[in-house]
């Protein structure tokens, strides 16, 4: 495959698509599939056949279109009309009315000028809802692999690293470390063997950002990893993906095969000296295996337990070799950065948090689903404009970001810009992209307890503070929730939290107390209301009935 071949493939595919008068894009991501989008597809095809449109209208399954709460979703191209809650009846109407009589199905049409769409900005998810994830040609038709072609044929590895650094891109896996700096470190370490690893473990409860990208646009990850491989000097990549994502695994397998067939992975990519292969490694779904050192051990076939850093994986990673490890969404940003330039990317978001971030919006909010917003957008905009606010009759109370490692942001901080530094200044974190909205009906002690329950179950057990501390924090929260705790227990709870946070070995333990600490910071009264006074000495004469607990 040469650059020209790639160009030609892209044009062929574009021409093939132009032959259709319309393309009906139905959402084939997990959310819509679970509410019936496969039946919708069958009905669309059946209705098209009945109307003799099968040859001129194409039905295409795509990645997540975002508004998961209103699925199944169908988009009609080239108009771009988007339909929600499409069942078989509506599917038939889309063919018979929209396509044949040219009258849109008003009842199910979504107003795409609504802030849900208008406030979003799609880079990572640009192809979700736009291409068939199972066809490499469709990816190539939308400039897929053009960035890899350019990098391999026109740029020096150091230039690629520099471009990524200048973009300001920071790791989307949680910690927000500068991607360019990380690439630079791995590139500079002298070693014949280096590895590139994609962290697709996505273990946060309720998170499905990475999964949507993997299922909806798998080639984007392969391209990002190959570019990384070229930049740091690695020939082998691994994608560590959890076994709970069978569709993502299937799509990735297919995508790797397709890319190998076309010579976009393998030896002498674009006729250069650059060889790069990607293999999958399936994780058994332990949350801690998302931690980089545990993930590496797991790929090596050992027990997924973290180890102290330094040495960092960039110096000693997989099988002791320098290893670049990034998150799915981080890799998903690479191709656009190369295609459109670091200046373009750096102009999006805020100076220190550039680009966009994908969030899985859930909880007590009208529009739930997958959104991508420019960094620095206010939390208020996400909750009220994009999310449509809390349901009728309830009031916004807090937004939880960062899942079990994050915190709750109360209404008083609704105007906080969503960027790395601002979120941590209000006691939460950007995290990997979970965002749960809570309203006046949510109980904060229960929220903290829920996440602590998760962390105690997911602790690997290697270090004492996390293994035992999380159990006790959870137990204390339970006692508090049941009204059995005393005012002595609150300082104990806080001390335990600080201790687990400061002394645990890996990020799991270090961040596990965050949901408790942040709810204590903003909703302390909800804890205090549940506490009793401990019994004390009562001298005779001053007799008041002693409080018991």
């Amino acid at each position: 495959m040469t650059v020209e071949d790639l160009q030609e493939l892209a044009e062929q595919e574009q021409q093939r698509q132009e032959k259709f008068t319309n393309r009906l894009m139905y959402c084939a991501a997990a959310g819509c599939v679970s509410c019936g989008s496969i039946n919708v597809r069958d009905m669309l095809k059946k209705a098209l056949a009945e109307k003799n449109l099968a040859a001129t209208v194409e039905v295409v399954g795509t990645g997540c279109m975002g508004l998961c709460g209103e699925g199944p979703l169908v988009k009609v191209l080239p108009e771009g009309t988007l339909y929600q809650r499409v069942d078989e009846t509506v599917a038939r109407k889309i063919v018979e009315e929209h396509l044949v009589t040219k009258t849109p199905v008003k009842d199910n049409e979504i107003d795409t000028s609504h802030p849900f769409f208008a406030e979003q900005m799609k880079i990572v998810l640009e192809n979700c809802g736009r291409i068939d994830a199972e066809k490499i040609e469709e990816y190539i038709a939308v400039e897929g692999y053009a960035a890899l072609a350019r990098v391999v044929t026109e740029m020096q590895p150091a230039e690629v690293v520099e471009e990524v650094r200048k973009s300001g891109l920071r790791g989307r896996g949680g910690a927000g470390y500068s991607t360019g700096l990380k690439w630079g470190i791995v590139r500079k370490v002298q070693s014949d063997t280096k590895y590139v690893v994609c962290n697709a473990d996505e273990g946060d409860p309720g998170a499905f950002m990475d999964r949507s990208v993997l299922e909806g646009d798998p080639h984007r990850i392969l391209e990002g990893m190959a570019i990384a491989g070229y930049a740091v000097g690695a020939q082998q990549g691994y994608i560590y993906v959890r076994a709970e994502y069978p569709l993502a695994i299937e799509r990735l397998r297919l995508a790797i095969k397709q890319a190998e067939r076309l010579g976009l992975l393998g030896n002498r990519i674009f006729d250069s000296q650059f060889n790069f292969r990607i293999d999958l490694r399936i994780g058994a779904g332990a949350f801690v295996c998302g931690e980089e050192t545990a993930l590496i051990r797991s790929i090596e076939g050992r027990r997924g337990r973290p180890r102290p850093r330094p040495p960092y994986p960039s110096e000693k990673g997989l099988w002791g070799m320098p290893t670049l490890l990034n998150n799915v969404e981080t890799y998903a940003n690479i191709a656009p950065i190369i295609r459109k330039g670091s200046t373009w990317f750096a102009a999006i978001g805020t100076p220190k948090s550039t680009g966009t971030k994908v969030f899985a919006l859930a909880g007590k909010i009208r529009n739930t689903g997958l959104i991508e917003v420019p960094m620095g957008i206010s939390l208020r905009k996400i909750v009220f404009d994009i999310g449509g606010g809390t349901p009728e009759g309830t009031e916004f109370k807090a937004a939880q970001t960062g899942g079990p490692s994050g915190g709750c942001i109360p209404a008083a901080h609704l105007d906080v810009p969503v960027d790395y530094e601002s979120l941590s200044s209000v006691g939460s974190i950007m995290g990997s992209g979970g965002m749960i909205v809570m309203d006046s009906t949510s109980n904060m002690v229960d929220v903290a307890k829920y996440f602590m329950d998760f962390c105690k179950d997911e602790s690997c057990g290697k270090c004492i503070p996390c293994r035992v501390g999380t159990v006790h924090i959870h137990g204390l929260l339970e006692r508090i929730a049941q009204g059995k705790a005393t005012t002595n227990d609150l300082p104990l709870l806080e001390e335990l939290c600080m201790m687990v946070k400061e002394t645990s070995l890996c990020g799991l333990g270090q961040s596990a107390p965050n949901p408790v600490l942040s709810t204590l910071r903003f909703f302390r009264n909800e804890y205090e209301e549940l506490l009793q006074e401990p019994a004390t000495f009562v001298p005779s004469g001053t007799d008041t009935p002693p409080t018991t607990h």
Partner: protein
Amino acid sequence: MKPKVATIWLGGCSGCHMSFLDLDERLIDLADKIDLVYSPIADVKEFPRDVDVTLVEGAIASFEHEELARLIRRNSRFVVSFGDCAVTGNVTAMRNSLDLDDVLHRSYVELADTTPRVPRDYPTIAELMKQARPLHEYITVDAFIHGCPPTADQIWSAVTELLAGKKPELTHVFLRYG
């Protein structure tokens, strides 16, 4: 007025009290300084009020113990966990991970020499709780005397300091489990 001291025996083997008696001639000294208002070695029925220092031997093993603990807390200025069973649960708590019925059956039926019968069936005998647990898990405890049993010297040091109105300074020498 001499300080009022009480000692009580909950879920323990009485070894701590035996050790108390090991104070030997110091007991005479102590008897001059304190008023022993309640103790298994003194014949008083009701736990009195306004006790200055109460030493509690044993874990909280029955519902009766739990009630007593609260009474002790209300009636005492200083409550002391006296010996490892009160401090950690210790031997009394060895049954905790087992099923209570199994434990009772093993002890009172399988291993009985005569009249095998679980004492639970007698209404006069206190109902055991599922687990025996340390005193401080039920009430606020002011000081701890460790050991199984604590030595006479440990007891002496703690008691003299308590009577001087101080929390006993538990130096390395006296902090010992087992």
